[in-house]
């Protein structure tokens, strides 16, 4: 496309003149919020990674004394919690924010201020749950916080003393706060995707990332309520002395487990589907081929999401649910391998007879296929309950979920970061450093997590802060620890690249990868209004309609090529005002409201020990929340 001129450096420096701290605190621009998500989540990824490094150091050899048992228990709890809720989910949210409006041809999300609110709530919730680790008071109940260990009877006071243990209070409160953030964001994106698509952008023409994100939003709105309820019960047990999980009152601890996993299993698809979406953008681009079996890819994504609600008890095969329940959940779980397999094969078929360019994002995407498959297969091994009885709560499970989470979600997210960095910043990430990152990462993760299959099957339980010599696990643990150190190097290379390239990376044009979808039709970084003129879409691959006019990019046959005049890149110098596009006012009201919410929960935490102070803070927070909401809802958007 001849019109894709290289932007001038001035254009790269920033698409809107507004800058400075305030412009970030008050922003309602989905791209800026996406950027905030990206930076924050990467920071949490480093924190979670640092925790992992400490875990692995402690386990390098038998009977190590690097950290104490109590510290270790906080480390793995916070590692899991951080990686799941504060790193991978928000990294996905960064892409939801940045990409969905661009991919569907919209100027923003449906509720821009709600979007800002979601981010701030996430940030403060993350801080609330993470900060205590500095005081050795971090949550220590494991990332799934099983009752009754998480009830006041066993984690309310230090055993044998009356000293208040707040560790799990932070977890309970923090996760509730984070739930608010996720739910608010999900309603927002559901509405955005349903209602803000550009003319011609039918559901079945949406880019695959948007589709997978769409499925994820439904998983979010259906999976978060059960955990919210479970957490409310736990919080009430801890703060008001209710009996939901109180052993002495005859409570059934399996209630917690069921409510948690009703959330927890859909949650793992919340973690993987965005990554699946990202590689579904990367693979076609660098194979120069449309996605193989688009429709089936959509349906399998929906199928995975739907089946995901019927398998939760596969995390509980050892609790003694009975043969019938075990069988049902086992079969349901196995079913999920089918739609997932379809995705794997369709990706490979997408590359088949293409022209594959091995860019860094492409390498990460290919690695996802290779590595996720391993994790998926060990998942199927778990799905057979008798076999799982030998695997559950061992390092075999740890191997499984790191292959799907690191080999799947993280690989996919890195693919996305390398792919979209030019769109976000206007500059490429350095290719050489990127390659170094990729290979270190790829080797490092296999060295870290592959040996865990063996240590698990050879009898090593998970969540142990130490193990005795002579158990046959030494070699595997040592290898895993070396692997982790390799990952540290890999991550350091990435961080260096990420920071450096913002100012020194090669300048990227609007469409640096020769891609097909709408987000590449506008300058990099995009102007605040995204599209000077909302384009009319005629097919799934509007840009390829122009570049490869002989391809009929939409197999439905009814497709009309997208209107070329719509897809020409605007020079970035126009302001929204000059174009007459009304933009939302920047406002810090969502920030203020979010602070109110977190202050409220802070008050609730204090309430247990200091009624008056706690209540005062709680009411202050509530007043801020209500006042903020009121001010926000009564002020115009644009």
């Amino acid at each position: 496309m001849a019109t894709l001129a290289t932007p001038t450096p001035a254009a790269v420096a920033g698409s809107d003149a507004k800058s400075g701290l305030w412009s970030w605190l008050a922003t309602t621009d989905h791209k800026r919020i996406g950027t905030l998500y990206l930076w924050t989540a990467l920071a949490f990824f480093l924190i979670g990674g640092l925790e992992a490094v400490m875990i692995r150091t402690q386990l390098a050899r038998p009977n190590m004394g690097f950290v104490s048992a109590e510290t270790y228990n906080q480390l793995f709890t916070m590692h899991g919690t951080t990686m799941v809720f504060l790193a991978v989910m928000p990294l996905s949210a960064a892409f939801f924010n940045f990409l969905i409006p661009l991919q569907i041809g919209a100027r923003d999300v449906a509720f821009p201020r709600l979007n800002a609110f979601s981010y701030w709530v996430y940030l403060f919730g993350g801080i609330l749950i993470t900060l205590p680790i500095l005081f050795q008071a971090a949550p220590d109940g494991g990332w799934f916080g099983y009752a009754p260990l998480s009830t006041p009877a066993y984690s309310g006071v230090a055993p044998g003393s009356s000293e208040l243990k707040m560790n799990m209070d932070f977890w309970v409160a923090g996760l509730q706060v984070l739930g608010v953030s996720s739910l608010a964001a999900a309603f927002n994106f559901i509405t955005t995707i349903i209602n803000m698509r550009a003319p011609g952008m039918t559901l079945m023409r949406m880019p695959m990332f948007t589709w997978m994100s769409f499925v994820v939003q439904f998983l979010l709105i259906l999976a978060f309520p059960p955990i919210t309820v479970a957490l409310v019960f736990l919080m009430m047990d801890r703060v008001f002395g209710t009996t939901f999980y109180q052993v002495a009152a005859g409570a059934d601890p399996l209630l917690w487990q069921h409510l948690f996993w009703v959330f927890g299993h859909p949650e793992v698809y919340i973690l993987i589907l965005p990554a699946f979406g990202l590689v579904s953008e990367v693979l076609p681009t660098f194979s120069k081929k449309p996605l193989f079996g688009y429709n089936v890819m959509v349906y399998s994504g929906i199928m995975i999401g739907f089946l995901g609600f019927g398998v939760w008890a596969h995390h509980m095969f050892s609790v003694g649910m009975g043969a019938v329940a075990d069988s049902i959940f086992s079969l349901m779980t196995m079913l999920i391998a089918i739609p997932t397999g379809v995705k794997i094969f369709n990706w490979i078929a997408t590359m088949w007879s293409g022209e594959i360019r091995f860019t860094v994002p492409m390498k990460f995407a290919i690695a996802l296929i290779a590595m996720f498959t391993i994790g998926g297969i060990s998942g199927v091994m778990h799905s057979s309950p008798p076999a799982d009885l030998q695997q559950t709560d061992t390092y075999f499970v740890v191997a499984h979920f790191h292959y799907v989470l690191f080999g799947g979600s993280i690989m996919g997210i890195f693919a996305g970061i390398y792919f979209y960095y030019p769109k976000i910043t206007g500059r490429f990430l350095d290719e050489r450093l990127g390659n170094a990152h990729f290979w270190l990462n790829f080797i490092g993760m296999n060295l870290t997590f592959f040996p865990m299959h063996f240590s698990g099957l050879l009898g090593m339980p998970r969540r142990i802060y130490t193990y005795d010599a002579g158990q046959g696990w030494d070699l595997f643990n040592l290898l895993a620890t070396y692997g982790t150190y390799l990952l540290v190097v890999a991550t350091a290379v990435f961080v260096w690249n990420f920071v450096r390239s913002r100012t020194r990376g090669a300048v990227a044009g609007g469409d640096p990868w020769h891609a097909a979808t709408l987000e590449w039709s506008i300058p990099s970084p995009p102007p605040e209004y995204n599209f000077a003129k909302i384009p009319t879409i005629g097919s799934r691959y509007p840009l390829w309609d122009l570049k490869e006019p002989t391809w009929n990019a939409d197999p439905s046959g009814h497709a009309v090529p997208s209107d070329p005049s719509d897809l020409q890149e605007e020079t970035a110098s126009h302001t929204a005002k000059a174009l007459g596009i009304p933009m939302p006012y920047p406002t810090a009201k969502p920030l203020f409201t979010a602070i109110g919410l977190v202050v409220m929960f802070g008050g609730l935490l204090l309430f247990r020990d200091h009624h008056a102070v706690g209540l005062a803070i709680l009411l202050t927070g509530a007043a801020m929340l209500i006042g903020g909401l009121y001010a926000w809802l009564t002020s115009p958007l644009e």
Partner: protein
Amino acid sequence: MLKLRLRQAAPVALVAMLLLTLSACGLTEYPNTTFHHNTEFNSAVDALFDRLVFWGTIVFVVVEVALVVTIIKFRKRPGGPAAKPIHGNAALEITWTVIPALILVLIAIPTVKTIFETQAEAPAGAIKVEVIGHQWWWEFRYPELGVVTANELYLPVGRTAAFELKTKDVLHSFWIPQMGGKRDLITNKTNHLWFTPSADLPSSAWNGFCAEYCGSSHANMKFRLYTVQPDEFESWARHQASPAVFSATPAPATPVIPAAQVTVADSAASVAAPTAGYAFPKDRLEAEFPHVIPQTPIPAGITFDDALLAGGDPVKGATEGFLLGGCIGCHAISGVPGAVSEIGPNLTHLASRHTIAGGLYRNDAPTLARWIKNARHLKPGSIMNTIGKGEYDPILKTTNTMGLDDRQIADVVAYLMALK
């Protein structure tokens, strides 16, 4: 085509070999492997696992080979063929939906069969064992035999053991990798598990673990299983069921004391010293089963004058230290009136056990002394409080002004060591 097949076969063979090596590996190298067919339970699980590995390997190889072939074959080359805009292929897509489905059927059928087999009622004639989880140790009860013990489980080979799993506090999970899968101990609920140690097993020792995170010392909640011959079991059980006595030689420099004098005066049960029962021989452990011998080093920062141990007075230990130390408030010793508490492990035949504290430490006088002096220093979070005088209690965050001095501890140790 043939070439491709060969290339596919190679990794299969490789992985299979790797697994075979692992599963065939000697007891000493991988003492907790899940691959040994020591029970019918483990045989069933392993048969299933083999099938999973078989199909898993095939899927793995197919996917990875297809992937590698694709990216090599279709990498962009100057002058290479142009990309073809293929949108899909219904026949292909149906194929790779149906084939995995078929594979899953082949996995699902034996899975369901095995679920029902392993979860059926235990066969008649099984020996009943109650397993009670505590933070962080195991209580084992044989209700039919009147035996109560801790952290060390004896089972006769060739006879089904039917476990009733319960917990006193939080969740735990009972797991002996070599004997089969685990089962959780759930608050307010009784779970069941059974397996039969193969009749042709020689008397052997195995490791058991707590496999459900249960707090500070979850890692230190281990136990031992001794699968022994029926007559050995018989002898062990008969002895364990008897009340405590000083049946063995007391510590040197102390005259042999009649049992009646040692235990609190009016203990009727402690008159006759029964012949010592069977206990798994220590020398065999050292020679054949080193993996069941704890290697945990005693943490730095605790001192005890081991010379005192030689002069420990079991009588004083029983009549003075055991009371002063408050031991009686938590520990039961059958035959000793007042010592009935179930907070801590039953100590009736403590000296017949090879390990203490959830399999964390060896059971010998120097370790016992340090344990009594400051259990919480030795085992994070331990419910047993710090008893040594002048010791720092890491949970209460105070230093004991009261408590036992080293001399008194040595006496208690002498007493405990006599509880064969």
